[in-house]
């Protein structure tokens, strides 16, 4: 179930990042929406991780290199454009992934069938904001372009094969590129031209290599749990 754990880590880590927005969103509606997305992801994470062990032991007692999430999920939240760009890249990926996973009829299919509905909403939400920011003001356009450019090199990793998943992830990559390009185009944004992964680190999360930001994320997330070994909450 290494694949379930990898997908569970993605969802957990991104939920943790989105949780940082609570109370600080640009409009109150987004406090609701971002927390809602975070809750969906946290729910997916709990189901997936529970398939492979105790959810709390996995979340709170693993070391950095034992997490298998993509680096895209762990990057700092940045500004609202960075968050929107990540949500776009990630939710288009998740929608394709869960739809394909639901079709496999395997052990993860029921979960995927439920999640794909949630994720379609996340994708729609990200798309709407990509349009507003890309095609809004000069400033929002500039910020949004910088955000989609900056995150591009973390997107290749999403389509690395995951053993035992039963989904042809590399095969989904062209569809993902098409869909993302379509949204970016409608948002008057340019599809980034650089590499979609880079040597050594960007794109090695699935091998347990993360970014400097991830250690700090874990320190915050795990501190309290680790400070009380064996306690129940």
């Amino acid at each position, binding site marked *: 179930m290494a694949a379930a754990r990898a997908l569970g880590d993605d969802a*957990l880590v991104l939920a*943790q990042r989105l*949780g*940082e927005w*609570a*109370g*600080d*969103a*640009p*409009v*109150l*509606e987004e*406090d*609701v929406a971002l*927390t*809602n997305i*975070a*809750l969906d992801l*946290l*729910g997916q*994470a*709990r189901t997936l*991780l529970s398939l492979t062990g105790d*959810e*709390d032991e996995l*979340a*709170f007692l693993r070391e950095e290199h034992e997490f298998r999430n993509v680096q895209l999920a762990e990057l700092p939240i940045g*500004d*609202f454009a960075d968050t929107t760009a990540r949500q776009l890249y990630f939710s288009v990926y998740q929608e394709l992934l869960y739809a394909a996973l639901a079709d496999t009829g395997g052990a993860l299919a029921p979960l995927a069938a439920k999640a794909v509905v949630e994720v379609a909403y996340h994708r729609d939400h990200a798309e709407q904001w990509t*349009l*507003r*920011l890309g*095609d*809004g*003001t000069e*400033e*929002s356009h500039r*910020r949004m372009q910088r955000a989609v450019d900056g995150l591009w090199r973390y997107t290749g990793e999403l389509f690395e094969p995951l053993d035992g998943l039963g989904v042809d992830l590399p095969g989904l990559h062209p569809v993902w590129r098409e869909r993302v390009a379509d949204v970016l185009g409608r948002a008057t944004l340019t599809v980034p031209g650089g590499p979609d992964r880079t040597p050594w680190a960007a794109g090695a999360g699935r091998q347990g290599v993360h970014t400097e930001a991830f250690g700090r994320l874990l320190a*915050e*997330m795990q*501190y*309290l*749990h680790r400070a*009380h070994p*064996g*306690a*129940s*909450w």
Partner: protein
Amino acid sequence: GELQAAFDDAVAADTRIEPRDWMPDAYRATLVRQMAQHAHSEIIGMQPEANWITRAPSLRRKAILMAKVQDEAGHGLYLYSATETLGVSRDDLLDKLHAGRQRYSSIFNYPTLTWADVGAIGWLVDGAAITNQVPLCRCSYGPYARAMVRICKEESFHQRQGYELLLALSRGTPEQHAMAQDAVNRWWWPSLMMFGPADGESAHSAQSMAWKIKRHSNDELRQRFVDICVPQAEVLGLTLPDPDLRWNESRGSYDHGAIDWSEFQEVLRGNGPCNEQRLDRRRTAHENGTWVREAAAAYAAKHAADQDNAHEEARA
């Protein structure tokens, strides 16, 4: 005049006042003040609890806490909408909050220092809020009363979750128990202050009661809250930090010790532990979001123009 008489009759008959109805300016102003304060409290109130989302010690508790903070944002939305029925915009209300010209509940100027504070806020702060708010479900102003019905239902859920969180700590390790006791020690008195000054000292109470915005006096509600909490604290295995708290057979209620109103006044005056921090953070979030709101407005304007053009073309 006639309008005033119709208003008075409606209030007397417990008929709801609705946005289209005539109402006295002072009634409207009182509602705006109170409802805005209530809405502001929901959004400022996200901060002390959101402080623990990233550090929640189990995934189940993290999910519960996220959902709670989300509910608070939702309550803020209903309450701003309800306030807008009185002819003031959310933007205007937010500007007043940010300028310090409208208040939020002083309770949120206390810090959440440990995980147990999340439980204490649920049990005591939400508990006090519910005690205050349940009667508001019968408030004379319709939109406010209806918002309250929904909010109270969710709040009572939060209150139970807070209680259960504290129970788990109280029955946990000695460190967890101490954490729970410490949180209750810190939140008990501020929670009692949430009901406002003693009846003799309360500036707005009498008129609000006459208008049926308010249904019970501050001291009545406070007493009700104390009477609910004392037996719950016993079940929790936690002590309420008031040596004068004891059952009064003749009143059929618990007597409690004197409240330190000077602290209450200091916090109101802006000298509470987190007043500046809370308002600064709110202002910063709002300022950081300016470019986003501007983008959304610009996009909506372009998009509306597109639709107009489409209509024009269809007609031509």
